[in-house]
């Protein structure tokens, strides 16, 4: 199995604050990794560093084989990121948005409907402007947008937040399915029950570095 994320002593800085202070992690293909830790531990920063949105200022970071200190752009093609915020164009309709993201990811637009169905987004709301949707419905659109780009590496920041109980278990099965098809899932979450059930490995962050790793090899 090839390593999808290989971080060695990664340091990252925002403003002048070190949000990652030396992260050593190696994630293999097909894993479902839960990143946990207190508020402010550095989970979001870690995911953003994996996505290439946060510059790595020391250490070595490889994602999908690309050296993130050399080329942060190319790997993004294979990465799907769900942040704390939903990254939605509020004036578009839900379906239009997912179609746009699907097409922008190089896939067929027809993936959109399937993705929306997968997250349980009701088809009656496909043509409603995103700004009119409820918080959970928006989250579903955001998740569907990630699904529709068929990423090889899924980076999800609190994917369960805002979803109702049913959608949460549903999301878990979607992620499991993706992982079994060969994708890698790294997600941060505060829902211990749901995420432990989902994950095959738990990484605990603290103060911007790894404090525990259930799958450390």
């Amino acid at each position, binding site marked *: 199995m090839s390593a999808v994320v290989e971080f060695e002593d990664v340091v990252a800085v925002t403003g002048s604050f070190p949000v990652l202070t030396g992260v050593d992690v190696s994630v293999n293909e097909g894993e479902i990794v839960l990143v946990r830790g207190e508020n402010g531990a550095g989970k979001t920063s870690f995911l953003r560093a994996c996505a290439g949105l946060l510059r790595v200022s020391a250490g070595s970071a490889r994602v999908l084989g690309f050296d993130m200190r050399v080329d942060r752009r190319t790997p*993004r093609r294979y990465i799907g990121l769900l942040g704390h915020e939903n990254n939605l*164009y509020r*004036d578009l309709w839900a379906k239009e948005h997912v179609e746009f993201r699907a097409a*922008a990811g190089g896939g067929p637009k027809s993936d959109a409907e399937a993705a929306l169905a997968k997250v349980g987004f009701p088809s009656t709301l496909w043509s409603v402007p995103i700004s009119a949707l409820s918080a959970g419905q928006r989250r579903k659109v955001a998740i569907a947008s990630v699904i529709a780009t068929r990423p090889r590496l899924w980076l999800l920041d609190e994917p369960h937040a805002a979803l109702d109980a049913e959608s949460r278990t549903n999301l878990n099965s979607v992620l499991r399915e993706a992982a079994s098809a060969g994708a890698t899932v790294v997600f941060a979450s505060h829902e211990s029950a749901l995420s432990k059930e989902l994950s095959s490995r738990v990484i605990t962050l603290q103060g911007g570095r790894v404090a525990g790793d259930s799958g450390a090899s």
Partner: protein
Amino acid sequence: MLAEVLLLARKDLRIEWRAKVALGQVAPLTLLIVVIFAFALDANAPLLELGAGGLYWVAILYGGTLLTQRSFELETEDGNFDGFRMSSMKVHSLFLGKALALFVQICLLEIVLGPAILLFYDVQVANWALLVTAGVAGTMAFSVCGVLWGVMAAGLRVRTTLLPLLLVPVLAPVLLAGSRAFETALGVRADAGWSWTSLMFVISAVHTVVGLGAFGFLLEES
């Protein structure tokens, strides 16, 4: 790549179509500015010799800046700039797609503003070819610069106020060139309107080249 450019531009234009910002809000606003300006300056009539051409481009500068702001507001609200940066489209497509959409929106503005100015100022067009070419050249320059500086400001806070500050100095030469070219086209100045027009094409070209080259860098940094 063309497909990507069109995809992005179509997305922006669809949002414009929904919200009708360019036609419904910015166009009347620029009209208003032309009216107010002309009136404020008319008291000292010689100032108005600046003329229709200059005021046209001042209004477009204002309207175009607003449209650029709006265009990047779309890409930054709700954390969207991450989405923009994560997009697997080629950076060139991102640049050209945004520029194309902005170009179309500014054109919409001009289609409203142009006839209005002709009417209000009672000017005669001496050279339609020059007028249209200069219009297109100026609009191209505006949209290309707008996107370049828009993305520069996008990752930052206080972009509402920063963007104009970055944009206006860059667009000032376009403003001057556009005004001169239009003055020739309207027959009030013997100057070589075509060379001013070429200047605008050169400015667009330079910014396009810089944009295509630098857009990757600009996207990298938040």
